């Protein structure tokens, strides 16, 4: 009974081939793989060519599962079993499992692809990080190299402006000064962004006088706007608190960048700054800042992208806004201060940037601290001597010029790291300035070896003249005994402030 069913449901899934020990076909059919017309099994498919040695050993059993075989007219996936005998008759059994294995292939396909994708993603992230880091390092290095020339050019332009110049020369010098300033800001912007992207921009909170800050910004931009033939209008809410705690420099940068942006894109009409108080709650003051202009405006489609760095929105659009980095920095700083920014603008109808941010209100006792910030430069009984270790001639000259016009310091200049210790053994110094660009020596190394000289030397304040402004750099300096950093580009005031602060 079973036999009948077996025949009825017999699946033609197997093929049997009989070969001798050399592979000559004794008996076969064409049911799965075409072989009837072949003389030897080796001619049937290269698979058999490569295993034909196995037929020479009798009484063996070999199992090849999932073998993909391509023929002219078809491809199959089969399990192939071989039994060798000692009567020179070897049987090859081919079980066609193409369908079964094709289903399995799909599973394997999905599994492998998802595993590989996750690995590639990991790698991509790694690559991206590397690239990002490279970019940030590049930016930092590049801007460092610009710092010495910018410092010198600013300082000497300033000294030049104090000489007798005719009005034409004064005009030219004004342009040089303002171009130099511009350059300085742009480089600082680039560095700020590099810091932001590497997570190193931290807010530096102090108590400050808000009204004073706003008035300073107002006067500064009043002059700038007038030069561009624009009206500059301001309005400050009388309810604004006088003192707040926050990063004064960054708040100024937010407002300044917005005004700069407005002035850049307004050829006639006015630019305005309005600051008001939203509320004071839980010792926090929420400020509302509006910067409006009557300039070319910003198309709605561009409202989001203008906050991205390096955007030059839509090169085909007629208002070719080359925004630079300012707005990207504003957006980031606001986010750090739990603030937000939005734009109300349409092409040709001017723009209004509106932001809200909150800062801590100052406690009474803190308010007094801030007043005595300005340093007056007193004269000393005896001139102080400064040892400058710096290999940039531009910086050497700049410092020489600043100190000689101040008149309270002797300057002793060394360009080589090797000369530092021998010089200090023979000469006194009241303060030591070390540049971070000395060849073969880092400022920290030099500072450490100075400190090791003697207890007297240990007490000499050492300041770094540095192009490095990242948090880690500053920490590194502190650890090596460097008291403070004068960052390049610097001007006469920032140099003298630091010298007077540390000189004994």
């Amino acid at each position, binding site marked *: 009974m079973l036999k009948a069913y077996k025949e009825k449901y017999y699946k033609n899934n197997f093929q049997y081939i009989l070969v001798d020990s050399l592979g000559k076909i004794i008996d076969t059919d064409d049911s799965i793989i075409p072989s009837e017309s072949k003389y030897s099994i080796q001619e049937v*498919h*290269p*698979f058999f*060519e*490569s*295993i034909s*040695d*196995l037929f020479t050993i009798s009484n063996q059993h*070999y*199992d*090849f*599962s*999932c*073998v*993909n*075989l*391509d023929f002219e007219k078809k491809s199959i*996936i089969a399990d192939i079993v071989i039994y060798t005998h000692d009567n020179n008759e070897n049987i090859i059994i081919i079980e066609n499992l193409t369908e079964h*294995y094709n289903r*399995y*292939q799909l599973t*394997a*396909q999905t599994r*492998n*692809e998802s*595993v*590989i994708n996750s*690995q*590639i993603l990991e*790698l991509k992230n790694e690559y991206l990080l590397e690239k990002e880091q490279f970019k940030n390092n590049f930016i930092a290095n590049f801007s460092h190299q610009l710092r010495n020339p910018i410092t010198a050019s600013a300082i000497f332009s300033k000294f030049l402006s104090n000489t007798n110049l005719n009005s034409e020369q004064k005009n030219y010098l004004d342009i040089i000064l303002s171009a130099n300033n511009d350059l300085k800001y742009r480089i600082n912007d680039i560095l700020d962004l590099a810091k932001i992207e590497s997570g190193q921009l931290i807010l530096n909170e102090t108590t400050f006088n808000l009204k004073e800050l706003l008035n300073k910004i107002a006067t500064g931009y009043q002059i700038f706007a007038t030069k561009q033939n624009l009206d500059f209008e301001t309005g400050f809410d009388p309810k604004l608190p006088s003192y707040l705690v926050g990063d004064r420099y960054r708040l100024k940068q937010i407002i300044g960048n917005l005004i700069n942006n407005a002035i850049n894109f307004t050829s006639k009409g006015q630019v305005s700054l309005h600051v008001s108080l939203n509320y004071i709650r839980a010792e926090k003051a929420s400020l509302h800042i509006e910067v409006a202009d009557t300039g070319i405006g910003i198309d709605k489609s561009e409202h989001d992208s203008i906050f991205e760095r390096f955007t030059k929105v839509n090169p085909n659009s007629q208002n070719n806004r080359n925004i630079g980095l300012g707005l990207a920095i504003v957006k980031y700083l606001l986010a750090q201060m739990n603030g937000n920014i939005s734009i109300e603008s349409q092409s040709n109808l001017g723009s209004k940037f509106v932001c809200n941010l909150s800062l801590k209100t100052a406690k009474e006792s803190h308010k007094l601290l801030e007043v005595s910030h300005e340093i007056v430069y007193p004269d000393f009984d005896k001139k102080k001597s400064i040892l400058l270790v710096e290999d940039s001639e531009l910086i050497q000259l700049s410092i020489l010029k600043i100190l000689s016009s101040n008149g309270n310091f002797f300057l002793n200049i060394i360009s080589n790291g090797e000369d530092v210790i021998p010089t200090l053994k023979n000469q006194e110094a009241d303060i030591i300035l070390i540049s971070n660009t000395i060849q073969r020596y880092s400022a920290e190394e030099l500072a450490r070896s100075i400190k090791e000289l003697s207890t007297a030397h240990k007490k000499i304040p050492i300041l770094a003249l540095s192009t490095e402004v990242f948090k880690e750099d500053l920490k590194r300096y502190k650890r090596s005994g460097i008291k403070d950093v004068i960052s390049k580009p610097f001007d006469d005031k920032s140099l003298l402030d630091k010298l007077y602060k540390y000189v004994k």
Partner: protein
Amino acid sequence: MTTSKKIVLLGHFGVGKSSLIRRFVENTFSENYKVTIGVHIFKKVVEVSNSDSISLIIWDLEGQDDIKKTRSSYLLGTNGFIYVFDLSRPITFENLNSELEFLKENFPNIPVKVVGNKMDLVTKLYLKDYSEVFGHLVDFFTSAKTGSRVDNLFSKLAKELL
């Protein structure tokens, strides 16, 4: 005279074993990944010298993350191995040493060529960074995509098999 030799390609999945073979046999390449299951067998006759040619029967194995998982019948009677890894995926060469050790122990006199594939995806700097891991072990840096060093690989092995 033509002799026939069995070459087996081994390595993790997706490293480009099938692609290297396709480049060598048909001189084509596809970006699409079709996972090999079991084993796929190809043949190409190469001239080794004026009088000698060699019929390479190439076994393209399903990728394994551990060589020990390979079905042992596939490795029977192998004349030469090509161990392939993917330069762009460190996981495929992390255990290169022990993988090769397995071959050395079980197939002591059979030549093995070690191949870092997908050369087109990585930079010189990257190679340098990783050279500690595989530098001294690799025989060929190939790209199935560009075809770089693929023929050299197979013909070098073929010569050694004669």
